[in-house]
């Protein structure tokens, strides 16, 4: 007899088996063990089917013109927005389509630059004496735009330092935050260490000093239930291609009041009410930020991806990710000469593990694993300052998702164990 808890546990363990048939890239028995979902995820057929159905019925511009096709396209586009809004606990008008998460983060930083230059609401105007706070562990997408904002406005960029293992804590943030901090931008989940930041507490600390909170949610929204309203952040960014959706679409989610105060850095058609030769008045969010013909087909694809993930069940997915996190840690820990970066075993972490292999460069590790049919990611993962802090140029990262099987992790472990012998490095 199975109890409900057992049944749930079964459902969790069976997740990869259940979903694999939907993923053409993984269906083939010779398919590699794909352990690079933190870079980009594979796509279920439902997503491309939704795109194709939309395109083949006849594309049309959205929010422009009066035709029935335009109406149909506009509804499909806005339905996708509602899907994404529901998925992250935001209102529909709090969801702005972007090209990717990088674009979303830039939209905030560039909007603040415009606010500082007197173009629009002054709420986000920065100047000399003001501070922008990030962490030393950020992805370049959540670092360079802030460096540039600091240079444009005269504000100072500061950062929460990370420890030798790549982690940082709420206490480190408390020390760095002060009354001059105007922006605190950090990742919900690190794409290198898997560290999960205590967002509500950090947001509260930041808000207490009057700072705007910008969350890089690239590695959280795809993998764990995220309720932006409950997290209390002002802006959040994530990408479609990491959550079963297509490339070419990302999201800037913003609290209504924050979006309303942000000037649109990118301007053009569909964002305006009245335009004269010298001036333009802008629509309310989200339209204000969606300049030009949007990635309509890809938004519809992302809507389908979100519904797919809801169909799987977010709790079920999160539980499986916890299993995978432990399995990946155990696999890496079991191999001599392999060092894990990030939180120690036992700490909560995302389903990804980055390692350094003694005596073998990450490129060679990755190449060897690739030849063994295990696809991982090697390099600095767009986090050079963090790698510098870790004292290595590059690491090897394995990351899982709903379609990752126990077998995939076992193949990773077996191949990893062969690396040092192959390159003739003695243990």
């Amino acid at each position: 007899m199975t109890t409900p808890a057992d049944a749930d546990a079964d459902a969790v363990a069976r997740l990869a088996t259940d979903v694999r048939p939907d993923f053409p890239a993984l269906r083939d028995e010779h398919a590699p063990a794909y352990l690079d979902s933190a870079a980009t995820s594979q796509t279920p057929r439902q997503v491309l089917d939704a795109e194709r159905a939309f395109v083949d019925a006849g594309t049309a511009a959205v929010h422009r013109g009066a035709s029935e096709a335009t109406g149909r396209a506009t509804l499909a586009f806005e339905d996708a927005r509602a899907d994404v809004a529901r998925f992250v606990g935001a209102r529909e008008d709090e969801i702005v389509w972007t090209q990717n998460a990088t674009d979303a983060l830039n939209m905030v930083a560039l909007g603040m630059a415009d606010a500082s230059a007197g173009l629009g609401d002054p709420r986000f105007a920065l100047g000399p004496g003001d501070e922008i706070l990030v962490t030393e562990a950020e992805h370049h997408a959540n670092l360079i735009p802030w460096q540039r904002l600091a240079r444009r406005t005269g504000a100072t960029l500061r950062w929460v330092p990370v420890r030798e293992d790549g982690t940082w804590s709420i206490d480190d943030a408390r020390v760095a935050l002060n009354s001059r901090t105007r922006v605190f931008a950090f990742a919900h989940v690190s794409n290198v260490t898997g560290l999960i930041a205590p967002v509500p507490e950090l947001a509260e600390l930041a808000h207490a000093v009057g700072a705007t909170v910008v969350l890089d949610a690239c590695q959280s929204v795809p993998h764990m239930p995220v309720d932006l309203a409950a997290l209390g952040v002002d802006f959040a960014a994530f990408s479609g291609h990491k959550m079963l959706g297509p490339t070419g679409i990302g999201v800037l989610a913003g609290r209504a009041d924050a979006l309303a105060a942000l000037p649109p850095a990118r301007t053009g058609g569909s964002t305006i009410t009245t335009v004269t030769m010298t001036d333009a008045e802008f629509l309310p969010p989200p339209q204000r930020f969606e300049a030009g013909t949007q990635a309509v087909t890809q938004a519809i694809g992302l809507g389908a991806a979100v519904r797919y993930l809801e169909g799987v069940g977010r709790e079920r997915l999160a539980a499986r990710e916890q299993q995978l996190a432990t399995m990946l840690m155990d696999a890496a820990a079991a191999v001599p000469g392999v060092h894990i970066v990030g939180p120690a075993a036992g700490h909560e972490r995302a389903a990804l593990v980055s390692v350094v292999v003694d005596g073998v460069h990450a490129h060679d590790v990755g190449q060897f694993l690739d030849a063994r049919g295990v696809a991982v990611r090697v390099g600095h993962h767009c986090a050079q300052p963090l790698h510098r802090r870790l004292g290595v140029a590059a690491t090897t990262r394995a990351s899982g998702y709903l379609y990752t099987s126990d077998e995939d992790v076992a193949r990773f472990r077996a191949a990893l164990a062969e690396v040092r012998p192959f390159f003739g490095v003695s243990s």
Partner: protein
Amino acid sequence: MNTDLASLYQQVILDHARKRSGFGLSADATARHHELNPTCGDEITVGIAKDEDGTLSVLGWEGQGCSISMASASTMSELCAHRDAAEVRTLIDQFRAMLRDREGGEPPESLEDAVAFQGVARFVMRIKCAMLAWVALEACLDQLSARERTTPAAS
């Protein structure tokens, strides 16, 4: 296709588009609001004033736009004049609900001639046209009630 067109452009709508009841802004209006449809540049300004008994003594509009927006403004001014704010707000809500109802449920009789706009619900790009004057009217009512809150009536 032609049935669709007939359901959108009912004769009463085409008539109202030409008739334009309530066209013209009175100098007596104590609240005014301008509303724009950015897709096409259509615009309507509504102006209202309340009588001592709380009913709308003035309800006029000016603007230019498609037959749907013009007819809707005309119908609105016939329907809402000489009613009190609460009644008018109910009518606005009912009109909006009818336009949002893609299923085509029976609209309330209280909307009178304005039920002719039910067909618009199926033309999603035209809902804004039909709502334009009504949204402007709602904004006028908001102005008046905001003012009443800050200047309590002499008793």
